[in-house]
């Protein structure tokens, strides 16, 4: 085993990880920052985000409104102190990205332009055409090249967190190209490993989004919070799950069922006119839109495509010019992956798993309960998304809290309060997978997990289904422990081995989701229980905490939500929304 000594390890080269590394490097250039990522940073999933990032700039807008939209969007499960910090720092981070070169789309006068997004009451979303995540990620990556104290370990797979005595000591990582194990001894570790959407079958996420960081922290003793809240994006291509960004609707696209009827009006999102209207109809929040789809499907009003049921996303009335100018990537993707010319035909779409609201529990300083361990980005649950994330809040979350995490980790590493001496490392477990002669095929276990989640921990849930899912996941974990048999037993670039390790994390993360969902006997935000249709603030205005319990099922606890200014109300969409002017 090779040993790398460093001050801070950042695991993850997505938006959150890069921002954290830059923040740490800017805090003190003498700190050695190791940026460890299983893919070269610009391949991270942030690259695929299309729509944009929210930050208050318009005169008609206010931090208060962004706060309220976020808290009500999250169905009051947000920690309001954290949301206050968040909305106050969004714009400054977006401006910083602008200074670093991010090509935000502009108004003719040279100022940054903003667009509507679902659940946002004003045009607040900064965008770079429909390649917002791509440009943010490349801007951050290229900017990170400026700091000599950031040392990159590209294509290193973090397989274990080293924790002694409640303090983080470093990580163990596999150098993918050679299969060699590396120990990174560090004073502080930032996890920025992204979400866990790949525990489901049909999703918008990249292949790397397997919940590794959540699994790492979970096993090391940090609780996962609110894992039952999974966001379905209402407009994805059936089959592949490739996303047709919400920005389509932000620009004025409409959703119709097989009869050409704008069905959202039947689900409390109307009235249809005047259109467009903020937070109404197609600009309603994602959970409501995905749920409406399920109802339409049940009523038999969806279209049948070879890849499954779908409705139509219609852009045609926007006209060729606007479509090509504002939504070039989507037009291209619709053409390539669905064979549809968005200018001439509507695009068939359906909901697919999109975003993991829950994650590693942290406070507003991105601290986990393990000293020296920080988490930021989609892998973390810092408390801003609650029961449902608003579109365009997460691209800005990754920079706001990426910075916080990097700063905090640097402060900790400089403070001297970390533990000294080499950590204890046990190699067993990681390489044992390579020597199994008996066992099941990896893809079999993986597919069974995905199908279980899709079927029983879907948009609508009920007790029997969730119980079945919990039982199934327990047996899958058991079968995984008994052994998977790999075709590939070699060390160099063994992606099958890595996939097996990922599956290990994913199974445990999926279990936290299913058990959290089972325990939450109410409907809130993205968590819809057929057997408990109403929100129940008396019993469940609480975060769910899942604690790892070895080979047994996770222990579920609940934790109070911080409320500062906004008492829970009904969530209002549709008619209550104001008329919006599109520019």
């Amino acid at each position: 085993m090779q040993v790398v000594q460093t001050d801070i390890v950042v695991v993850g080269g997505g938006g959150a990880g890069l921002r954290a590394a830059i923040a740490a490097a800017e805090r003190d250039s003498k700190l050695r920052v190791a940026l460890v990522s299983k893919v070269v940073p610009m391949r991270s999933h942030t690259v695929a985000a299309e729509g944009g990032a929210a930050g208050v700039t318009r005169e008609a807008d206010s931090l208060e409104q962004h706060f309220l939209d976020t808290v009500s969007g999250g169905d009051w499960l947000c920690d309001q102190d954290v949301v206050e910090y968040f909305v106050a720092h969004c714009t400054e981070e977006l401006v910083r990205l602008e200074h670093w070169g991010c090509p935000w789309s502009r108004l003719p006068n040279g100022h940054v332009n903003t667009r509507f997004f679902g659940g946002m009451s004003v045009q607040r979303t900064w965008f770079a055409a429909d390649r917002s995540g791509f440009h943010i990620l490349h801007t951050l990556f290229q900017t990170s090249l400026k700091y000599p104290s950031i040392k990159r370990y590209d294509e290193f797979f973090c397989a274990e967190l080293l924790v002694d005595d409640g303090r983080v000591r470093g990580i163990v990582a596999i150098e993918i190209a050679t299969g060699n194990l590396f120990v990174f001894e560090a004073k502080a570790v930032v996890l920025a490993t992204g979400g866990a959407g790949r525990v489901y079958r049909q999703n918008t996420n990249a292949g790397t989004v397997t919940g590794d960081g959540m699994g790492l922290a979970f096993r090391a003793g940090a609780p996962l919070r609110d894992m039952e809240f999974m966001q379905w994006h209402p407009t994805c291509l059936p089959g592949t799950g490739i996303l047709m960004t919400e920005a389509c609707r932000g620009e004025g696209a409409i959703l119709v069922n097989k009869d050409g009827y704008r069905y959202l009006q039947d689900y409390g999102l109307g009235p249809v006119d005047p259109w467009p209207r903020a937070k109404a109809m197609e600009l309603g929040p994602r959970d409501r839109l995905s749920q409406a789809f399920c109802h339409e499907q049940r009523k038999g009003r969806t279209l049948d495509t070879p890849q499954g049921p779908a409705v139509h996303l219609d852009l045609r009335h926007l006209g060729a010019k606007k479509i090509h100018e504002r939504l070039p990537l989507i037009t291209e993707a619709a053409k390539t992956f669905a064979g549809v010319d968005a200018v001439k035909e509507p695009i068939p779409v359906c909901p697919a798993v999109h975003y993991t609201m829950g994650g590693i529990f942290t406070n507003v300083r991105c601290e986990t309960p393990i000293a020296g361990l920080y988490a930021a980005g989609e892998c973390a649950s810092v408390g801003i998304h609650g029961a449902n994330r608003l579109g365009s809040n997460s691209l800005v979350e990754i920079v706001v809290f990426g910075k916080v995490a990097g700063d905090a980790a640097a402060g900790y590493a400089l403070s001297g309060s970390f533990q000294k001496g080499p950590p204890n490392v046990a190699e067993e477990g990681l390489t044992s997978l390579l020597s199994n002669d008996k066992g099941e095929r990896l893809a079999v276990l993986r597919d069974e997990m995905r199908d279980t989640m899709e079927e029983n921990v879907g948009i609508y849930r009920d007790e029997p289904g969730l119980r079945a899912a919990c039982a199934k996941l327990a047996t899958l974990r058991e079968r995984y422990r008994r052994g998977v048999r790999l075709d590939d037993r070699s060390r160099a670039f063994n992606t099958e081995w890595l996939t097996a390790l990922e599956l290990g994390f994913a199974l445990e993360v999926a279990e936290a989701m299913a058990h959290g969902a089972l325990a939450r006997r109410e409907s809130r935000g993205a968590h819809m229980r057929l057997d408990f249709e109403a929100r129940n603030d008396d019993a469940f205005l609480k975060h769910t905490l899942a604690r790892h319990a070895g080979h047994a099922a996770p222990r579920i606890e609940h934790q109070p939500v911080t409320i500062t200014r906004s008492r829970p109300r009904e969530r209002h969409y549709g008619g209550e929304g104001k008329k919006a002017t599109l520019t």
Partner: protein
Amino acid sequence: MNTITIECLRYHPESDAEPRFQSWPVPFTDDMSVLQGLQYIKDHLDGSLTFRWSCRMAICGSCGAMVNGVPRLTCETFLRDLYPGPVRIEPLNHFPIVRDLAIDQADFLGKLQSVKPYIIPDAEPQGTYLQTPEQMERYYQYSKCINCLLCYAACPQYGLNDRFTGPAALALLHRYNADSRDAGKAERMEVVNTEDGVWGCTLVGYCSEVCPKGVDPARAVNQNKIESTKDYFFRFFRK
């Protein structure tokens, strides 16, 4: 369902002295990409087949390979268009092979760093910079590069001399030089002006032909030949 033969170049550094081809019959539907074909092989036929992928929507730049001799993103190349096959998949040309289809990207990453692909500001403004859509248009096209390296696999000059900075890195260099917010052109011209900067290019032009994002790196490189020439002759007049 139709079946198509996929033949892949394979190389394992621990056991192979040189690469060899292996082929598999793969059942496919009309909406299956070459990447999905490879995934099918990995899941069901041979778990040791090694290739990179991530977004599967042509934006992360991971999945480039030679498909029937042409550099392509495998996630947006469809088996239906290659029917009846066989389809021949090789790692991107001109790069060292680490294993099977995975090539060593370290050289490019070093080059990217060498062109200083970040804003080198004059002075930071209050609030955002003003930049009109016209000013943005001057560099935007070059900022669309996804670092997929297809252009390097297309460029024989890079294959013949791997010190050549190459199309994508030079396109990104140009992207920052052309950005109204940047003041670092003089520093970057040092890279442009070397023998292995723009002068490594003989305008083969295939780089732009294969670029999946319309970046047109050949244009960035060759416009900088003029820039470099101006820089060469006018440096005596500048202070």
